[in-house]
């Protein structure tokens, strides 16, 4: 499985941070999404042109990924988060335990990010009635943060969700 990839080759990316945890522990408390995204953003933002602005943007984008993983995952396995950097680009890799059905959700969600009406669909999701669309965070990353998203299989029972962000460019 390798869907809508085209993020850059991982060559020359330097690993900045890695978190390994049990998905059951991560998903036991919603606040962990906020805490983790804020902590990582502060850690990796300090040497960007404007550390505070960068941290705000990164935290917002990363939090949506974490909230998606919080909602959509299979229990009982490892959840791994790695942050890589190459120049202006930061690469978030989340290894999320998934069964076949959940993997299909991520694959479909990422596949549709390339469609021409994405912004329209994202805005429609923002103003729709009823429950939150689970892919709304991924759409936001692609539309508002110009993230390049992809997924790949990570063994039999997990997927690796990748988001590459060049947030200083976005803010220009």
């Amino acid at each position, binding site marked *: 499985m390798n869907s809508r990839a085209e993020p850059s080759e991982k060559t020359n990316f330097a690993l900045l941070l890695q978190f390994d945890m049990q998905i059951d522990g991560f998903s036991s*408390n919603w606040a962990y999404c906020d805490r983790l995204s804020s902590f990582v953003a502060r850690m990796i933002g300090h040497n960007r042109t404007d550390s505070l602005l960068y941290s705000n943007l990164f935290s917002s984008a990363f939090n949506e990924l974490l909230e998606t993983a919080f909602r959509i995952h299979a229990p009982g396995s490892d959840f791994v988060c790695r942050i890589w950097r190459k120049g202006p680009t930061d690469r978030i890799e989340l290894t999320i335990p998934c069964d076949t059905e959940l993997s299909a959700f991520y694959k479909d969600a990422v596949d549709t990010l390339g469609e021409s009406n994405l912004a329209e669909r994202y805005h429609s999701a923002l103003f729709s009635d009823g429950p939150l669309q689970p892919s709304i965070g991924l759409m936001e990353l692609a539309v*508002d943060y110009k993230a390049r998203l992809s997924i790949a299989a990570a063994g039999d029972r997990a997927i690796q969700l990748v988001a590459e962000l060049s947030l200083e460019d976005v803010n220009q």
Partner: protein
Amino acid sequence: MLDTLTPTYTARFDENSQELSLIGSMRPQHEADMAKCLQVLEQSLRLVRGTLYINVKRLVRVNNIAFRILAAALVNAATERPDLKIKIITSSVVGWSTKKFGVLSAVNANLIIEEYDNEFYPGQTFVENSDFIHVLRTQTKMTWRHERSILPRHGLKPGMKVADICSGIGDFAVLMQKEFNPSRIVALDHSKSSLAYARGVAEEFGISGIEYVYGDASEMLLEDNQFDFVTCRHALQVFDRPELILKELFRICKPGGRVYVTNEKNSHCLGEPHGESIQWTYTEVAKLWHHFNMDIECGPKSRRLLQDSGFDKIQMESFMVTNLDGDPQDFADIIESWKNLFAGDMAKQRGDSPEFIERFKRGFDDHIFAALHPKGYAGWPIWVASGRKPL
């Protein structure tokens, strides 16, 4: 990690300004967690006429759950109250908010997004041009001769976490980094061009480790209790409400840390010969600044300002930058630039007559004459004050 998501946000409505301020972080898990926000919004809507302002300048984080609820409530309000304009005030300092809230305008034209950034300070436009940058550097060079030894008396030590707020072109932060080797140093300013200059200088001279941050000193996004030593030089005097900046300096300072401010009292600039002419002109400078809602006489008021902002163990002293500090031409260059600024753009904007401007300029010329005269003396007094944030 904490077990609960705290702090989250505050929602506060000010009836006088018809402004609902949303501050903090809104990342709820459930839509029901937004009930408090919606309740305050509903109360606000019952009380307002004409325009409701929604201030999200310090709403740092919002997830999609919160945004959908908020967006739906605002769209409903705009639909049900066509008589009402709802202006959402965002800030580019936050980064994401203008784009995120911007989608609301497309849904209802009475939902208006305004990005607040410019006009932070009344004097901003006067000092942002590139000619003035050279002067700012010269000023810092001359004041540093004094402040280098004053700063330790006010508590600055190597290895501290330091913030320089209203850092301008960043040269003071560079000097502090070189001299005091802080473990962290943040330089925050509200001028993008000054920050760009500061970053350029840092790159050119191979200076690393200073975090140059764009922001409004009266509403900073820096977290509470972060810094051992916070400096804010020559800034309270160019802001019409210095207490707002001091409140923020207090907030980001650690308990037990100190906030260090410098300010002037321009009417006390002096020189000989031609003392009377010099004194007249600088008394007029103070009036000119007052016209633009700035208090260039602020220096001796620093003690009261710090006390009123909650600081204790206040220390205060003054020093005089003079023509005898190094090259007298440096001093003369500063006065020349003041003349160009004060008797130029500012006097013209106030509508001063040519006769007044001519006399006004003469005092500056006399000050320069005093500075360069082999027997002359010219001075520019500065007041230093620092206070401790109580433990």
